[in-house]
């Protein structure tokens, strides 16, 4: 049996290629069934996301399944085989296992450590299982891959810190307030980025979102997204004391929140802390506000810096994660090799048993009548002789199975004992 992974990802193929190769959820079941019909197929799984299309396959030995995958992809996606081949990578056996573990642990992702890929892999697995395309080897391997991903997540900091600006804002808010439950948010200026940040905040528990915008229609539109309240743009400063988090992204050419106003707001709030996020360029909030106590002001560059620091931290964690994966891969390989040696052990035992049975039968006639006790003793004697002989080779086979050069030893044993060619 051979295990291979063939596919494209964001590193080997530009988006124009990936989008043509990607399977959508409707075409995926048909593709799986088509894959099952290919000659030499044993098990298969198709992972298709916006950053990768990969096909994991186990096939009968020597079936030349690599060619089949090129052809299969070209056929099912209606592209020329010569066009797709240059973008494809192919991993086999140990390398393929390592690749699968890295993908599951989000080390192969565009944003290293992002959590979605594991979920995507899990649904790909569920779909393949549903269509009877995985059983046995891939089943075990994927379960192992999910465990490895879990281990990487719990033993390294890879998924800890925020790596997008809007998510960094939420992380900082948690750093300031602890919990975001019953915190109020105001969005000044309805932009894409502030919408994202507000969405994250809302998901983390912020209760009330106020929206204000120069054009009323846009404010209404945005307020509907997270049943926010609309505040008249002219009157929004008087609402500031009500809210804990302010996100500004208006196109105003000058500061719309200045230091003196902020002082009054803080007095009115009796110094309950505030978090101001200014993602507008030019900036909307006077920078010196950050020197006031109990106010934390972050502009777009500050958030960007937080993201960069976090990314550097992730690179470090990724190294730790790679070490975990190397360890897991060699453990998996050892297990697989141990399994490979099982047929040899079985046929060695059969071979010896055959010799014993044949020789006993041949000699039995010459011994004449025996009591049942003597019959038993004869059986026991011959069995114990072959067991003693087999013991050395079998334990050595088990030991050699996980060694890199182990297959030479296995071949020797097969030859010496004349085990089925």
């Amino acid at each position, binding site marked *: 049996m051979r295990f291979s992974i063939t596919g494209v990802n964001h590193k080997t193929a530009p988006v124009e290629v990936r989008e043509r190769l990607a399977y959508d959820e409707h075409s995926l079941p048909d593709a799986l069934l088509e894959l099952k019909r290919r000659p030499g197929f044993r098990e298969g799984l198709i992972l298709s996301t916006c950053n990768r299309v990969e096909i994991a396959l186990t096939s009968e030995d020597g079936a030349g399944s690599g060619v089949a995958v090129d052809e299969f992809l070209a056929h099912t996606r209606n592209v020329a085989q010569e066009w797709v081949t240059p973008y494809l990578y192919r991993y086999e056996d140990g390398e393929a296992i390592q690749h699968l573990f890295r993908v599951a642990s989000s080390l192969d992702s565009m944003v290293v450590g992002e959590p979605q890929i594991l979920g995507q892999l899990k649904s790909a697995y569920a779909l393949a299982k549903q269509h009877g395309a995985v059983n046995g080897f891939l089943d075990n391997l994927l379960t192992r891959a999910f465990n490895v991903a879990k281990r990487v997540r719990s033993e390294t900091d890879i998924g800890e810190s925020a790596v997008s600006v809007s998510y960094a804002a939420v992380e900082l808010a948690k750093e300031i*307030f602890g919990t975001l439950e019953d915190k109020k948010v105001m969005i000044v200026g309805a932009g894409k980025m502030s919408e994202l940040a507000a969405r994250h905040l809302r998901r983390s528990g912020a209760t009330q979102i106020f929206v204000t915008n120069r054009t009323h229609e846009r404010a209404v539109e945005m307020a509907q997204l997270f049943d926010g309240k609309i505040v008249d743009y002219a009157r929004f400063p008087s609402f500031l004391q009500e809210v804990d988090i302010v996100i500004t992204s208006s196109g105003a050419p000058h500061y719309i929140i200045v230091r003196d106003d902020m002082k009054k707001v803080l007095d009115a709030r009796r110094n309950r802390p505030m978090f101001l996020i200014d993602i507008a360029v030019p900036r909307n909030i006077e920078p010196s506000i*950050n020197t006031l*106590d109990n106010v934390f002001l972050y502009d777009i560059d500050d958030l960007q810096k937080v993201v960069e*620091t976090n990314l550097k931290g992730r690179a470090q964690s990724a190294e730790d994660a790679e070490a975990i994966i190397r360890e897991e891969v060699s453990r998996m390989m050892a297990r697989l090799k141990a399994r490979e040696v099982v047929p040899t052990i079985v046929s060695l035992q059969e071979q010896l048993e055959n010799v014993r049975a044949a020789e006993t039968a041949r000699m039995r006639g010459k011994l004449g009548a025996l009591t049942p006790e003597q019959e038993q003793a004869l059986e026991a004697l011959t069995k114990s002789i072959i067991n003693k002989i087999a013991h050395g080779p079998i334990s050595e086979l088990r030991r050699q199975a996980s060694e890199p050069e182990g297959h030479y030893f296995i071949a020797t044993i097969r030859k010496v004992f004349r085990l089925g060619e």
Partner: protein
Amino acid sequence: MHEMGLLWLRIATALYGVGLLHALAVLIRKKAGFLKYALFAFLIGAVLHFVAIVELATAVGHLPVDNFFECATVCAFLIAVLFLYVYWRYDYASLSVCIFPLVFVLTQIGAMETPMLSWPNPGVRNAWLLLHVMMILLGYAALLLTAVASIFYLIQERQLKRKKSINLFTKLPPLGTLDNLVTNSMSLGFVFITLGVIAGSTWASIESGTAWIRDPRIALAFITWGFYLTMVFLRATAGWRGRKAALMAVAVLCCSALTWAAHVGLRTMLAR
């Protein structure tokens, strides 16, 4: 001191005690329902306080401000009247957190010029002293927690303000959590220390009459308590939060450490 005047003064102290209980309950539970009763008791207390001062004045023929105890009595009365005026005029009740304990302790000290009783037996005397020590120690423990949380707060706040090495300090609790911890442990500490101060000064007055009040170390203890009172007041009513409050908590801890150092060996001095 005049007998009747002293009696009234002691009843006034007891009535102020209701106010003290209210203030402590507010600090521990954030909300206490009996402000109305506490204010009423405080008002009656102030009236009796006035009666006591008048009695004393007629007895000595002039305003009784001849010694520390009499000054404390008059001072407490003036503060009480001022508070009642402010409350009546501006309906500003949140001052009570600070005023109730202050007036109580001052009046209590004023009423201590003549010891009202002597120890029935050494067991009670020692138990009383033990109560004082236990309360103060509990108060110090809470205050230490307050100061540690405050230091964490200062570090975390600095990180967030400087917008650097966020990663390094993610292991510290969020600012909001620390601020809550500071508020709660500070309130609890204040309750213990106030009870400790009351127990301690009562013990000292019964034990050694009036001489102890002039000891600078005792003065230091009262100043520390006053400092603590100010901190609680600023936090509870003036909205001092965050960095300033954290710095103040650390300062109060230092002050308390001084008081502690000063009190080592005080018992031998007080023993007759």
